């Protein structure tokens, strides 16, 4: 298998990035889901949000790299065995994922950077806030962040079920392609 995508196959760069971001989407969702209800005296009360912010921004950086890579080296088209409706759906779902992933990063950044706060990425570097004229930015962004997060994991779950259906029912290479087999 090559590093880059070929006409019919995903390269291992795409495969690694896909699974890394899949793990990040679910991992960050559960981290976020549990951290908001932590007991004030939990040792994770400050640590979990710090981790969530840092990982979230690194996820955003990786997403930008992925979008550039995708533009320079497009993925293989949907399998020839798919019908027209399936092809359109596949493309639409992929676009939806990119939109949701961008939106989850932006909304998360807007929560964390509200009140002119630089968002720390571990103790490595900080991303400065933007001087945005938004009223109660942290509340509005928070509401969006929650719903986009839920949308992402639900869409991710359906995406996984669809891949399994392709593998078991249609018996095509959809799932095998993205695991590099």
């Amino acid at each position, binding site marked *: 298998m090559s590093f880059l995508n070929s006409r019919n196959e995903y390269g291992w760069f795409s495969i690694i990035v896909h699974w890394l971001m899949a793990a990040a989407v679910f991992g960050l969702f559960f981290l976020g889901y549990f951290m908001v209800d932590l007991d*004030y*005296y939990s040792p994770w009360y400050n640590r979990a949000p710090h981790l969530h912010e840092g990982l979230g921004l690194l996820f955003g950086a990786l997403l930008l790299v992925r979008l550039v890579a995708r533009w320079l080296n497009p993925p293989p088209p949907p399998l020839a065995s798919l019908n027209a409706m399936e092809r359109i759906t596949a493309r639409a779902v992929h676009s939806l994922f990119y939109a949701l992933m961008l939106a989850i990063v932006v909304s998360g950044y807007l*929560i*964390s950077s509200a*009140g002119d706060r630089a968002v720390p990425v571990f103790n490595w570097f900080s991303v400065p806030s933007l001087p945005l004229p938004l009223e*109660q*930015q942290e*509340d509005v962004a928070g509401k969006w962040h929650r719903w986009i997060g839920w949308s992402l994991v639900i869409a991710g779950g359906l995406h996984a079920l669809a891949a399994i259906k392709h593998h078991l029912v249609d018996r095509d290479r959809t799932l095998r392609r993205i695991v590099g087999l």
Partner: protein
Amino acid sequence: MKRLLAIMGLVGSTILISAPARSADYIIDIEGMHAAIQFRIQHLGFSWLVGNFNEFDGHFSYDSDRPEQASVAVTINPASIDSNHAQRDKHLRGEDFLFVEKYPDASFNSTRIEANGADKLTIIGDLTLRGVTREITIDAEKVGAGPDPWGGFRMGFTGTTRLVLKDYGMTKSLGPSATAVDLILQVEGIKQDDEKAGGKR
């Protein structure tokens, strides 16, 4: 006709002037913001965390000869809470604390006032916060009163009260030293009972 109107006006104003003396009404100086609703709560038992409710409005009436007939009414926008930390303020506005989406209004209305001599007052009234209305007692003190330099008449009070968080449905634990929050109130009112002062703040 003009003369008739003039006479009616004269009669009208005479009635106003000769109306029985009553407690003077004051509106809280929001325009010049000579008022504050501050809160403070212990952090872990190690320090005080302070913040403000930035948006509120209200009025009071007070006559130093009959302080027990005084009254005060204030409305507060709980979403205007400001502890100088946006992420904490988001949490404070959320369901764990003020739940402003469901309970966007808070208010205080006095029901009776006891005078304790030397400008000290005990203000008893109903506080509505997070959908709960409870009787609270504010220990207040008149700071001063008199004509201001711009043609108005002002009077100011300071007061404190303490609220137990769980009384208002705020059950999120912040530790044993942080079960209650103090409210520290600063109020300056501008007298409203004559036409000239009416527009000035």
